[in-house]
């Protein structure tokens, strides 16, 4: 038992006082400690509490909860101390809330409001560091940074990239890539996890909302959209809509209302990806190609390989990501079939991801990428909301159909599971014995390793989410000691549902809920196998001929660049 604010709360071993309080619904304000952080740093001191028997205030994020402890979290003394800390943070903060990308959804502003800060008591020197707009995905506004260190913790410890760090000292301290350069020439992989970690407008996505609004108003342009599988699973957080298919149709209805002329399902090209990727895997196994083969649908991971480990390029699947497959199909085939007026197609993709912006810029075919956060803003600009009463519209043929396998691409293990279902069929001619569910690929462990006996051959698989853990696998591949055949890597923890373009308040619980929704729609799907997708089949019949064929190579595969510096 521990007592917090005269309330008795069950004591759970290995918890901090902060965790225990939050569990009991007692909101101790905290900044440097946050859900996605590997270890608290006791840097901001906002989470201070009083513990009976200790004269000094203690940081609850690092204080282990002990049985019998008596804690107070909001005494006048604590409130004063906290307020002063935040007022000092704000002393050098720009007065820019009205025009800030985080306006209305800013943790710092909320914290200040919760602490009752309604005026400036300290006026400090304002910082004047340059804005960094060099990357296609992430904008850095160091003058809004409060040096909480969350972005650094995520980038180094969760993502294992370490593109940014604290530099300089004293008043000049700032978060920056090495040599004070822009993110574009740093080791940054544009995953956007730092954006989600940031409590302020210091890190935001490079928004393309205005470009899309301009295109929608242009009569010479036909604007179409594709929607990634994680997006409806996420929009359901806030909408009272209970199935992914209904959510997709509601989103599609809303997009049409504001001028989109067609809405396609990226899960369709996820199914297509499986056809190509599994064929490629089997080809490699049969012909002694580079193994293990790594998935290539997560652009942050692809950039990680190109920039940090280019010697691993031969192991990457040559398949484009579902976004880019869809982009190529839209640009290559759609206008010929549908836009009789000969207008230019403006292709928008709606993604849970900031690295997709980079990927689109790098490979072309897509004109604008909007994150889940941006699409919500876009629709609000037009006075639209997702309600069950909103207009609905089906997605557009010929890229409308998705199997359950294509839908689960939105979460960690989903590509692996979909691939195993189809691989088993292609190798043995039969479906998986115990049904299509591949439990070993599911769950939030950072690395999942398992094997499967397929027609007398043991195939070994690994699923990684969050790049931090990929290094050990790369090490064994480099040593040529890896027994693995196929490795799914998703850059973000939880996969796309935990992507860098997702709502700021995405936490582990939100990720679990979204994954659950994906597995639900899979379970209820009439077809759960990518190779059974009728529209995919007819695409092969009418255009592509067969997986890995010449047309596939032209439209659906890509090459990679060694982007290591020096």
């Amino acid at each position, binding site marked *: 038992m521990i007592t917090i604010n005269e309330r008795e709360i069950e004591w759970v071993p290995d918890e901090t006082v902060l965790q225990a309080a939050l569990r009991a619904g007692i909101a101790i304000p905290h900044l440097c400690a946050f859900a996605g952080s590997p270890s608290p740093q006791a840097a901001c001191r906002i989470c201070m509490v009083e513990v009976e028997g200790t004269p000094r205030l203690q940081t609850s994020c690092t204080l282990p909860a002990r049985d019998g402890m008596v804690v107070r979290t909001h005494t006048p003394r604590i409130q004063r101390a906290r307020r002063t800390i935040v007022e000092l943070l704000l002393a050098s903060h720009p007065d820019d809330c009205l025009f800030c990308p985080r306006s209305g959804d800013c943790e710092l502003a909320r914290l200040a409001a919760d602490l009752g800060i309604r005026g400036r008591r300290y006026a400090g020197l304002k910082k004047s560091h340059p804005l960094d707009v060099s990357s296609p995905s992430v904008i850095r506004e160091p003058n809004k940074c409060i040096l909480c260190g969350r972005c650094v913790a995520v980038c*180094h410890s969760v993502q294992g*990239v*370490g*593109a*940014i*760090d*604290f*530099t*300089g*000292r004293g008043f000049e301290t700032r978060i*920056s*890539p*090495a*040599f004070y350069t822009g993110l574009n020439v*740093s*080791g940054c992989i544009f995953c956007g996890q730092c954006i989600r970690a940031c409590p302020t407008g210091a890190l935001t996505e490079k928004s393309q909302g205005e470009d899309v609004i301009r295109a929608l108003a242009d009569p010479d342009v036909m604007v179409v959209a594709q929607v990634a599988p994680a997006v409806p699973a996420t929009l359901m957080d806030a909408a009272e809509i209970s199935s992914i298919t209904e959510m997709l149709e509601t989103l599609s209805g809303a997009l049409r209302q504001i001028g989109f002329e067609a809405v396609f399902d990226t899960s369709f090209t996820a199914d297509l990806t499986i056809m190509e990727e599994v064929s490629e895997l089997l080809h490699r196994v049969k012909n002694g190609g580079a193994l293990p083969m790594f998935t290539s649908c997560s652009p942050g991971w692809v950039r990680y390989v190109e920039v940090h480990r280019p010697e691993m390029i031969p192991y990457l699947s040559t398949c484009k990501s579902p976004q880019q497959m869809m982009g190529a199909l839209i640009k290559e085939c759609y206008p010929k079939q549908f836009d009789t007026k000969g207008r230019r197609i403006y292709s928008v993709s709606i993604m849970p991801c900031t690295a997709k912006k980079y990927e689109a810029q790098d490979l072309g075919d897509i004109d604008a990428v909007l994150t889940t956060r941006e699409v919500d803003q876009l629709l609000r600009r037009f006075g639209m909301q997702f309600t069950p009463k909103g207009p609905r519209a089906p997605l557009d043929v010929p890229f409308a159909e998705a199997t359950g396998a294509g839908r689960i691409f939105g979460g960690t293990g989903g590509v692996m599971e979909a691939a195993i279902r189809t691989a088993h069929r292609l190798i043995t001619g039969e479906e998986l014995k115990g049904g299509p569910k591949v439990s070993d690929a599911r769950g939030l462990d950072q690395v999942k390793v398992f094997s499967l006996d397929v027609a007398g051959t043991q195939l070994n698989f690994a699923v990684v989410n969050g790049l931090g853990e990929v290094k050990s696998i790369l090490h064994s591949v480099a040593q040529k000691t890896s027994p693995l055949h196929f490795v799914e890597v998703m850059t973000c923890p939880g996969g796309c549902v935990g992507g860098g373009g997702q709502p700021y308040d995405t936490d582990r619980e939100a990720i679990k809920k979204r994954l659950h929704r994906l597995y639900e729609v899979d379970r209820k799907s009439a077809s759960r196998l990518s190779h059974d997708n009728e529209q995919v089949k007819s695409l092969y019949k009418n255009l592509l001929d067969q997986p890995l064929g010449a047309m596939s190579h032209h439209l659906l595969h890509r090459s990679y660049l060694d982007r290591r*510096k*020096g």
Partner: protein
Amino acid sequence: MRSVAEVVTGHGPLTMDSLIPVLQEVQAESGYLSDGSMEEISAAIGVPVSRVYGVATFYRQFRFAPLGEHVIQVCRGTACHVKGSLSIADHLKRRLKLTSDGNSPDGKFTVVTVACLGACSIAPVVKLDGEFHGHLTIQKLDALIDEIGGDE
């Protein structure tokens, strides 16, 4: 002058703890830390270069631009401060048009401030190319600079 690679090999197995000593040695060899040398150190220790740069920029002792032909160390210790070392530093900054890395644009001079040169009895003091000059005034300092060709 030893290369970064030579310095690094001289250190045996490297960990994060080796970072500061390695940075110090590399700077001792070449007078400053170049971007390239920090990239090399990062690869050798296996820490991101952002961390190497972050650590290096935290400590005053590290420089990121090559030294000029002449190095002037201005003492900013307590005794010198009382005797007006701030105006000496300011004067140098103006006269030599020093940039933020402490170098004059023509590459002739580098000015660094140091916590204490340990010559408080002759404050205010500067060290010019290794030689002490005490009881300094701005006139004396100007004469020293004129002598080695800092006029323009």
